[in-house]
């Protein structure tokens, strides 16, 4: 800004100043072709050729290495063999792919012609082309007579609307609607709480203060769709000092002498919440750090979960084993459309 009057109205615009409008840039053309080392020196050309061939050969060796690993490293009980096979399979495929890729690029960069080529932009289509196309569509409409024959038009419409209906029937066969499966679990009145994975029943006296048991309903290991049922029914059983629990009215008898059972399925996206801290009585979900406070009926005290973990009402049967008083009183796990 040395010249304060620069660009102010009334100043004469000098040739070459930035204010001068440029109508058109001069075409600088293609930069001069610069011959590469391989273009000038036959020895360099030969060398590049050998390098490309070597890279392709590396690819071949890689593929051979893969098959050596695949067929000639028999797996036994040791993990070293598995690791060696993993290594040869990985290195083999990596070199097989890399050799071809690097070889082709090196070939193109050193040996293939590198003259720059320009292709001019096409002329814009004249307006008459568009009019021709429009005329064609109009001719088809006129000649098919669809406007003059409403019977044909209406039956065609009917046929087209009805034709997709079989697809609905076919998709329906993919399976029944979920019905109540998201709202019910294997828990029911009198179902014993058993250890995961052995399925042995748990006595109330087994659960000492500070203990945490991973629990499945009795008979889970025998049902046909065991994993589906387990995914809904898993429960964490804990015993706290009864004075630490603060049950809300109506839920006082859902636990037994400080023993409480909560669904292990996070109400956020369904990860198993099982990181139990026996002194703080916090339950932490490992996926998104939702934290539930067992002292306050598994209320969410941190993280993205929206609802407390559902509590399983439990009691003790005549033989001293822990049993469920009923199924969960609300659907377990994350929200779904029809949850209500």
């Amino acid at each position, binding site marked *: 800004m040395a010249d304060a009057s620069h660009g102010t109205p009334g100043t004469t615009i000098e040739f070459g100043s930035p204010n001068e409008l440029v109508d058109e840039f001069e075409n600088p053309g293609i930069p001069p072709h610069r011959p*590469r*080392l*391989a273009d000038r020196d036959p020895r360099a050309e030969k060398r590049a050729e050998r390098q490309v061939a070597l890279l392709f050969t590396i690819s071949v060796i890689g593929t051979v290495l893969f098959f050596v690993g695949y067929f000639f490293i028999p797996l036994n009980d*040791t*993990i070293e063999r*598995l*690791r060696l096979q*993993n*290594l040869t399979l990985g290195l083999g495929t990596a070199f097989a792919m890399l050799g071809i890729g690097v070889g082709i*690029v090196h070939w193109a*960069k*050193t040996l293939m012609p*590198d003259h720059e080529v320009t292709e001019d932009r096409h002329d814009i289509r004249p307006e008459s082309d568009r009019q021709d196309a429009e005329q064609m569509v109009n001719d088809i409409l006129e000649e098919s007579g669809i406007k003059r024959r409403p019977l044909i038009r209406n039956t065609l419409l009917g046929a087209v609307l009805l034709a997709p209906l079989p697809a609905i029937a076919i998709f329906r066969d993919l399976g029944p609607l979920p019905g109540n499966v998201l709202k019910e679990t294997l828990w029911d009145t009198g179902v014993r709480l058993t*250890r*995961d*994975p052995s399925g042995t029943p*748990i*006595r109330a*006296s*087994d*659960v*000492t*203060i*500070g*203990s*945490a*048991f*991973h629990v499945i309903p009795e008979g889970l290991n025998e049902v046909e769709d065991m994993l589906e049922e387990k995914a809904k029914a898993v429960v964490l059983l*804990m015993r706290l000092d009864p004075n630490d629990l603060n049950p809300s009215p109506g839920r006082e008898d859902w636990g037994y002498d400080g023993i409480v059972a909560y669904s292990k399925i996070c109400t956020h996206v369904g990860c*198993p919440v*099982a*990181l*139990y*801290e*026996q*002194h*703080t009585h*916090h339950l*932490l979900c*490992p996926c998104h*750090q939702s*934290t539930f406070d067992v002292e306050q009926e598994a209320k969410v005290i*941190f993280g993205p979960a929206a609802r407390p973990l559902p509590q399983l009402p439990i009691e003790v049967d005549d033989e001293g084993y822990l049993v469920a008083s009923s199924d969960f009183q609300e659907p377990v796990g994350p929200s779904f459309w029809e949850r209500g």
Partner: protein
Amino acid sequence: MKALSQRRRHPLAAVALLLMALLTTGGIYAAASTANEAQAQTTSFTANDVEEGSKLFTANCASCHGMGATGSDAAPSLVGVGAASVDFQVGTGRMPMQMDGPQAQVKPVQFTEEQTRQLAAYVASLGAGPAIPSDDVLDASEGDTAAGGELFRVNCAMCHNAAAAGGALTRGKYAPALDGTSAKHIYEAMVTGPQNMPVFNDANITPEDKQDIIAFLDTIGEQGSPGGADLGSLGPVSEGLFIWVAGLGVIIAFTVWLTSRSS
């Protein structure tokens, strides 16, 4: 000697000296720790043990846990925690606690094997609690590693990580990695539930099941990762960092090479 003194200014002399020093200390340390392990662990305590333990307790622990181990605002009562709890907390260096924090940190063990035993004897005399496991309970050579693995994944893996590499808990607490933890300390941790770990008593996980779990931990500790470098077995964090740095680095390098002019 002359040849040695002539080479003392060699550029690699410092490296060689350092290596020698490290090997010597490592060797002595290894010899010392095996000697410690070799001492037989007896669970029967004499009256003398209790008395010595009482003195040690008054001198080292009573300021927090109170005279007679009845607890204070700073630390819980130790009546009924059992000898196993003392052996774990003191034997891994967690107690005496160095500083206040979310949980007691592992640090070099402060008491000898004998003193730890006496402390355990004293605390065990205050009230019944889990005893220090005997050697035949800890023998993991008979353990079923597959069953142990299943039990570990159900009961332990959520906090300690599927590869026992440890993990974070709430508000600064964490579950430690189990690599290098002795069978005795693993067993004691299960029966006593140190810090915020829940208790896994013998009614929940039977002594045989505990053996299986220890056998499983031994196996995964020995055999290493089937996939090569495990990057700490921390899952997407370390693996993601590696692929973002190394993978993107390779892609950028190839892009630079692809667009560069050939000479």
